[in-house]
């Protein structure tokens, strides 16, 4: 009986969270579609989420591309297939590692920042103040962040793809002895438009998830500084898990048989 009761309790709590998140999702999407639009806020968020994330995304891509080239060279040499380094780096970065690693790095940086900012606004009654000033918190706070993250992530991933391939190229040509022109030709010949666009579509989904989780946890934070800290942690953890889970489903849709 006790076991059944705890299963029931878990089911109730889980359903409540899913219901709350679904309602937040619908309200957020509607607030992106229905005017008024706060373009100044959108511009500010594009700068914060996009431009300010460039260094961390760039460095992650550079070192990932470099390490990937080394690993493929070492692994490929076991069956005399060292020549595939350029091809695998290109496909690995554009299809998987570029969007997923950029998504996870931005989740850590942006989702936490959004949850902390909105959470602090919640506990200091600034969100209530917005309502009393006839301004919808969803339109003023949530919509610009959702739109900015959804726009910025594909741009960041485009840059990450380029830098990641560059990392592989540098290791391949400087350490592993590949000819520069051959490496580039192999990359350009092998890579297809679908490899890049699938990664960019994934990135847009990840951007939406990152902002949604940051806004959701920040908006519902309670209990002072501790509550804001909890919201920040939950935002990063849930965004990261959802990015990895949705990546699997998107990969199945794009490349599944």
């Amino acid at each position, binding site marked *: 009986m006790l076991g059944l009761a705890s299963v029931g309790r878990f089911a109730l709590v889980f359903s409540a969270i899913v219901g709350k998140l679904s309602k937040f999702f619908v309200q957020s999407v509607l607030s992106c579609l229905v005017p008024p639009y706060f373009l100044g806020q959108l511009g500010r968020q594009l700068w914060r989420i996009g431009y300010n994330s460039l260094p961390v995304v760039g460095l992650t891509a550079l070192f990932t591309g470099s390490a990937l080239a080394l690993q493929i060279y070492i692994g490929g040499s076991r069956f005399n297939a060292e020549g595939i380094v350029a091809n695998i780096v290109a496909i690995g970065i554009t299809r998987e590692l570029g969007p997923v690693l950029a998504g996870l790095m931005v989740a850590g940086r942006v989702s936490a920042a959004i949850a902390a900012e909105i959470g602090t606004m919640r506990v200091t009654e600034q969100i209530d103040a917005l309502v*009393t000033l006839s301004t919808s918190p969803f339109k003023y706070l949530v919509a610009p962040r959702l739109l900015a993250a959804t726009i910025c992530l594909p741009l960041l991933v485009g840059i990450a793809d380029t830098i990641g391939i560059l990392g592989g190229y540098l290791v391949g040509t400087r350490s592993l002895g590949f000819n520069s022109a051959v490496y580039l030709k192999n990359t350009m010949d092998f890579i297809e438009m679908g490899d890049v666009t699938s990664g960019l579509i994934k990135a847009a989904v990840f951007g939406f998830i990152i902002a949604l989780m940051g806004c959701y946890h920040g908006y519902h934070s309670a209990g002072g500084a501790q509550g804001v800290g909890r919201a920040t942690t939950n935002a990063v953890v849930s965004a990261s898990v959802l990015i990895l889970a949705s990546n699997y489903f998107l990969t199945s849709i794009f490349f599944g048989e």
Partner: protein
Amino acid sequence: MPKIALEDVTKSFGSKKVLRGITMKIPAGKSVVVIGGSGTGKSVLLKCILGLLKPDSGSIKIDGVEVTTLHPWQRESMMRKFGMLFQGGALFDSLPVWENVAFGLVQGKRTSRRKAQPIAYDALAKVGLSEDVGLLSPAELSGGMQKRVALARAIASQPEIIFFDEPTTGLDPITADVINDLIVESVHNLGATALSITHDMASARKIADIIAMIYDGKIVWQGPASDIDHSGNEYVDQFIHGRAQGPIKLEVKRS
């Protein structure tokens, strides 16, 4: 017709009943102060009227319009009638002072920033703050100055109804009195209807036309501010004299 009318409003959080059937009428142009101890439901009452919380049952009418069933977009336009001074100020720390004051005009009423700026500076002047304060960040201001800026923000859009949530809490007696004077002056000049909640009796005596006392989620007394000292109500007497003995019992855990 009263400006604000509440009828049997109840609100619970889980098993805790915070409002147990509040009924009160706030006449237009009057300043009503709700007094009561901490945790008696004052802030919840204010938030229910503003629509920040949804009451479990009962009716809340503003200018005769039932507001508990309004759609969000209808509520947004209803909020244009309101100004609110929050206990902690609730100033937007990402914006300079003048943009805080102009926020309701620029974002809520879609006034251009060029037109809103002089109105914001005028509101700051009305609460005794100079122009150079307008460019500062809220974090650079003292508690008293933040309250003044919050008051300027509440009156900048010339609302019909102004709410004051613990306007003098955390301020020294002189600054508190300055804020009280500013509240009286602002409400009088605007001809607005005011609803304040406080446990500061000096503040209540100064700004109220009518005082209501809330205890255990109910209004236990209501009358003209001049009658507060001879209300004949034992709850009110205990509260205004700050006595530990009386019908109001504080739950104190003893080990």
